């Protein structure tokens, strides 16, 4: 554990530029994906795709720019754990709102 960073310099300049390129492509893809109507797949497909791209971009930033890739297990735990707590907040809030009264969110 004492070899937290050691002497290696993570992914180096080409690696950082590669991650940067992925982020730029992701941003442009997000924009164009939002202009195409994907509701024919299922309602909300646009939002799901946007969030998938956002999660991919976030993973790149966390793993490589924030060096989680080379970090000790406890930092992995802090990073993943915070999203787990966030998921609990979303899930328990929505299970309340979605079941407040019958039919309120049925939508049809």
């Amino acid at each position: 554990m004492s070899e937290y960073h050691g002497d290696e310099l993570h992914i180096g300049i080409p690696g950082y530029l590669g991650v940067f390129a992925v982020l730029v492509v992701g941003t442009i893809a997000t924009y164009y994906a939002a202009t195409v109507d994907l509701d024919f797949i299922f309602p909300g497909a646009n939002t799901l795709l946007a969030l998938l791209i956002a999660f991919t971009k976030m993973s790149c930033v966390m793993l490589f720019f924030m060096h989680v890739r080379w970090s000790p297990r406890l930092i992995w735990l802090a990073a993943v754990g915070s999203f787990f707590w966030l998921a609990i907040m979303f899930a328990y809030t929505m299970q309340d709102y979605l079941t407040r009264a019958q039919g309120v969110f049925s939508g049809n």
Partner: protein
Amino acid sequence: MSAHASDKFVYHEPGLQHQFDDMGQQEESVGIGMWFFLAQEIMFFGGLFTAYLVYRSKFPMAFAAGSNHLDAFWGGFNTLVLIVSSLTMALTVFYAQKSNRTLQLVLIVLTMIFGATFLGVKAIEYTDKYNHGLIPVAGWNKRAAADPAAVHGEAKPCWEVAHGEEHKYVNPRGEFIWTDCSLVKQAQDHNYLTESERNGYFSSGQIDGNKFRDKVRIFFYLYFVMTGLHALHMVIGLFLMAWLLWTAWKGYYTAEYYMPVEMSGLYWHFVDIVWIFLFPLLYLLGRHFMH
């Protein structure tokens, strides 16, 4: 040789705080502390994302309508600006690890320039909202007295307000203004209003422009609070960078000791990540309804 004499020559790394055994332990402790702070920040923003989730699931059309009024060009531009600033920040850490003072300074300055650009664009956007009566607090928008000589034509129902039509801005009390409810009509015709929307946009079976306006207003509340909190983080980040610039100028950071650079980087990247989610969720969510 006595024990004291040998203690005197124990190697002590210059950046090591006395409470840590070695640099590895110090770096790990600092890193974990910073990550716990970031976990707390995720929860901090998480409350707002939860509010967004609840109200968007209740009133998706009002959110789509509000979102379409945001400028996706500026939002996308700012996303790219932040990504470039994240790259320069990551490279700052890289050159700190290489003990290259000059490139550290150049890259910190670049990061600050991109951060300031982001805030400048934000100011342009907020001004635009002010000028169009989209700030969700009565009295905080631009005031414009009604022209008494104006000839009022037949008032059109709110779902027939044409897109992009030039309206004279009339807002004597600086209130939140919203006139277009064509998306409600569209959703009604295609039968995908939620139950909350069927109650929340209609009065006696008719689309009620005022009721719809109040739901769009919720979107703009969330827009301003979320982007405002994010902008506050950017301002704090700029102060952090200014401090980093000063200490890097004095040559504090080398391959042996660069943790403050790395930790400031974590904060900067975190703020970038928040924006990665704000951009599609606020600017792009209703884009596919525009034909």
